[in-house]
């Protein structure tokens, strides 16, 4: 029963990850479904849908199409839609029904490409995987098809994994780009968002990849093996995380964090969200409040190499509830929907930090972009204050 979710809604699925990664790249994106999945992407998962321009269509799959195939009708519809403007490519993205009837995305893409004369991708997404796997699939497909072999001396950096589904907006990307510029690394391309279609083919010319979300780690490793581009991981939000990432970029030894004895800890905090983002919060928090004890957990992309002892990958609700119960935290920071998972016996206070990949537009009025500078300081100070207050207000003493 570990796959049964009783409290949380379905997360943004793999098809939304693919469509989101391709959103700004001038392609004709077709989700092969009966309209529910397309609706989930456009109406809920994709924060840019109501403000940006993107051509996302629904194939309008019906029962009869599932029975008899009707690939020709689908190709006709794509052909008609493709005539509307000069698209850079066509992407046909899968959903549960095509998966169940064994629709051949790769074969269809080959046929459609021969017919249309522009690159066509088929993504056999199923709706059963999470958005970060879709992001990854899109990155790999784009790289294999469009990234050119490097010419000349490598220069600049690619930003990998800046997806709006992980709350990166244009401002966040601009802040990261400014940080890289200050470190002598002009941005070559951004993977996850950005309207620089022309920059994608140049990605292999970068001398460094900067991975800002755990979902992009497999892609960074792939680029390293294929084009020998080294990578560093981290999200530069404030002084502490900027300094750490700068050390990694310049291959300088990192400054170890000051150790605090457990009996000197002032309060415990559980940060639940995208792993790199929560890691960055932890670094910034501990640099300001070193006596806090901070644990990170995530339902999404997770890499053990970037986890600390006690951190929790959360494959399901049961595991999240177990972590919350056993951790006995003073404060939990995460998407508002996670509040439901806190056991009744817990005295933990809660700070809302909405995550698009989890609750989509439900909390669109909350702060959903990343915080930098004074906004970050205020946010982290608020967290520390709430955690200390929660500890001081406990009815039950904290176990030794």
């Amino acid at each position: 029963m570990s796959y049964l979710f009783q409290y949380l809604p379905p997360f943004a699925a793999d098809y939304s990850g693919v469509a989101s990664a391709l959103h700004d790249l001038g392609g004709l994106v077709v989700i092969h479904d009966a309209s529910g999945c397309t609706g989930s992407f456009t109406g809920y998962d994709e924060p840019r849908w109501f403000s940006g321009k993107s051509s996302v269509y629904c194939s309008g799959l019906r029962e009869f199409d599932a029975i008899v195939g009707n690939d020709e009708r689908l190709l006709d519809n794509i052909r008609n839609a493709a005539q509307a403007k000069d698209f850079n490519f066509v992407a046909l993205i899968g959903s549960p029904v095509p998966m169940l009837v064994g629709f051949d995305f790769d074969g269809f893409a080959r046929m459609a490409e021969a017919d249309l004369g522009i690159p066509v991708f088929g993504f056999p997404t199923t709706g059963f995987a999470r958005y970060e796997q879709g992001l990854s699939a899109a990155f790999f497909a784009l790289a294999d098809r469009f990234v050119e072999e490097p010419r000349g001396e490598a220069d600049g950096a690619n930003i990998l994994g800046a997806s709006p589904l992980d709350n990166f907006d244009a401002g966040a990307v601009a802040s990261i780009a400014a940080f890289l510029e200050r470190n002598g690394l002009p941005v070559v391309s951004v993977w996850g968002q950005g309207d620089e279609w022309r920059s994608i083919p140049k990605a292999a010319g970068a001398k460094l990849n900067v991975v800002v979300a755990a979902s992009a780690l497999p892609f960074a490793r792939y680029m390293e093996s294929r084009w020998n581009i080294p990578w560093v991981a981290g999200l530069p939000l404030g002084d502490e995380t900027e300094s750490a990432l700068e050390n990694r970029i310049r291959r300088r030894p990192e400054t170890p964090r000051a150790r605090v004895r457990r009996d000197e800890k002032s309060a415990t905090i559980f940060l639940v969200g995208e792993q790199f983002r929560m890691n960055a919060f932890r670094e910034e928090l501990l640099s300001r409040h070193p006596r806090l004890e901070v644990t990170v957990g995530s339902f999404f992309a997770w890499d053990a190499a970037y986890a600390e002892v006690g951190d929790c990958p959360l494959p399901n609700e049961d595991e999240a509830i177990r972590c919350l119960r056993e951790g006995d935290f003073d404060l939990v920071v995460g998407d508002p929907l996670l509040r439901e998972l806190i056991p009744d016996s817990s005295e933990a206070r809660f700070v809302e930090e909405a995550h698009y990949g989890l609750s989509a537009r439900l909390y669109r009025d909350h702060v959903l972009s990343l915080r930098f500078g004074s906004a970050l300081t205020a946010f982290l100070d608020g967290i520390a204050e709430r955690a200390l207050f929660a500890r001081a207000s406990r009815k039950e003493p904290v176990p030794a």
Partner: protein
Amino acid sequence: MNLESSRRDVCDAPKVSSVSAREVRAPRAPGAGAEKPIRKIAFYGKGGIGKSTTVSNLSAALAQRGLRVMQIGCDPKSDSTKTLTAGRAVPSVLDVLRAKGGSRLEDFVFEGYHGVFCVEAGGPQPGIGCAGRAIITAFNRLEELHAYEELKPDVVLFDVLGDVVCGGFAMPMRYGYADEVAIVSSGEMMALYAAHNIAQALNNFSSRGYAKLAGIVQNSRNIVNEDALVAQAAEEIKTRVVGIIPRSDLVQEAENAGKTVVECFPDSPQAAVYAELSRFFHPDADATLREAIL
């Protein structure tokens, strides 16, 4: 002496073992063609025409030539590889997934006669579920477990149930799976009709990068003018007859003993036919050899 013990006298029972992780990862012998592409052939044809018999004998003959052979049965009945595994049914990929959820290669890859890697995709119980979807799921699982990279076969033979009836049964001929399709047919009208349908499906899918038609393997039923009828059908679908297997009682006799003819009656003329056919499906069979066989 009863019939059972008589057969045992003829054919000793071979050992069947699950493929252990250590064996799977064993390095190949030097010069054994580690970099060579795998030759992957899917066998289609009318139900009951003798595909499993033909494919299993071919697997055995190829294995006798020193090749690493993998046979994947794509039929919910899961009986494709039975004559390579001493007549014993092995757990299918779907059986394992149904029982355990997760799985490892050694749960459903079994070494049969001469080390042939035997896999049965399996499927739903009769009357429920979706057999085509079962093949897709089994293939996906093999891919997730990197079956080809781990087992490093030289030849993979897909034994597919009947005709290309839906997306699931077309899976073996899709890009990335079999590169070639061989049709097993007799001279009977319904078998040749099925051959036409299979060829038509391949033709329809030509722009999708699907497998190419390698030819027809004639599994004779001793009907009047059979060779000419099959040859004519081959011409009509723009292919060729790559081998003619005569009808032989030894086939049934070997199957009753849970074996292939190649194993049970290695010195028989029928075994020689399969050995000859295996030259065509050998990974090193270049165009000249293939033409010479025709």
